[in-house]
């Protein structure tokens, strides 16, 4: 093994992965249970918050982003940025249509 020590690749323990897995299952149960409670407009907020937490758990632990290079982390964050641009600008358009009149009509 001594000749392989040059790669400082991090390997998580089975316990760590197991804990993440149990947490993911608990969060799934929670988000399903919450859906049957009337929270009004907050049900979307709660569901998306839980989904984002689950996504972070999967990405950081299962997909090893925690131990990735800074360049990979930057690229991964880039995905969130591009998605945010797509969603924000499209919704900004759709939700504000008709707020101002069309010139000439």
């Amino acid at each position: 093994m001594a000749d392989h020590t040059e790669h400082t690749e991090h390997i998580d323990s089975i316990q760590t992965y197991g804990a993440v897995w149990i947490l993911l299952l608990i969060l799934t149960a929670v988000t399903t249970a919450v859906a049957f409670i009337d929270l009004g407009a907050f049900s979307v907020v709660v569901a998306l918050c839980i989904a984002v937490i689950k996504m972070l758990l999967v990405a950081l632990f299962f997909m090893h982003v925690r131990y990735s290079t800074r360049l990979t982390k930057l690229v991964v964050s880039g995905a969130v940025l591009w998605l945010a641009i797509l969603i924000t600008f499209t919704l900004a358009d759709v939700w504000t249509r008709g707020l101002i009149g069309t010139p000439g009509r």
Partner: protein
Amino acid sequence: MADQAQAHAVETLALREQFDTAAQQRDAVTLGMWVFLITEVMFFGGMFLAYTIYRDIYFQVFALASSSLNAVIGAVNTAVLLCSSFTMVLAVRAAQIGHRRALVIFLILTLILGFAFLGVKAFEWNQKFQEHHVPGPTFHLDGTAEQGHAQLFFSLYFAMTGLHALHMVVGCGLLTWLLFQSLKGKFTPEYMTPVDISGLYWHFVDIVWIFLFPLLYLIDRHLGR
């Protein structure tokens, strides 16, 4: 020059000629896979956005249609998929530490769970056909006059879950290939790139479902009843 010739002669899968070190090659591989996954994020992102906009416009009927889905089956299937991600990460770990038997076992488990997810999905789709919830001439959703807008929900439902399932089928294909390769003993702690990046792909497909499940099945249940 002699050194260079020698360096070329020892080119391996773990260290290709164009890389300085094996670690550099691994970093490049991870980065490349993530760039591909970003294109997938944008691909699914477009559909999530379409769903968001139409859900916003036809709020009532979307809530009704969403509530007709079985949240318990959806939750069970989410659990199945999360379990498959767990076995996949253990397969990657087994490859990293060079446990061939464990790698084979965890790949088989992941494959079984992947098929289980697709089986449940097929059962759900079959129910949609029986309930006439498939967009088309025979479509009917009880409790609304807006049949067209209800069909829009189910069109998005089938497009999103269908494309997700297609990604699962591709994933199962990758797993089968990995299984045969690992049985042949192709993967070592020095070279397990295919296992590693297939793992990234599998977890990504899991993340897509993590968002699909609440958005399609859960968020409007309180309104639909």
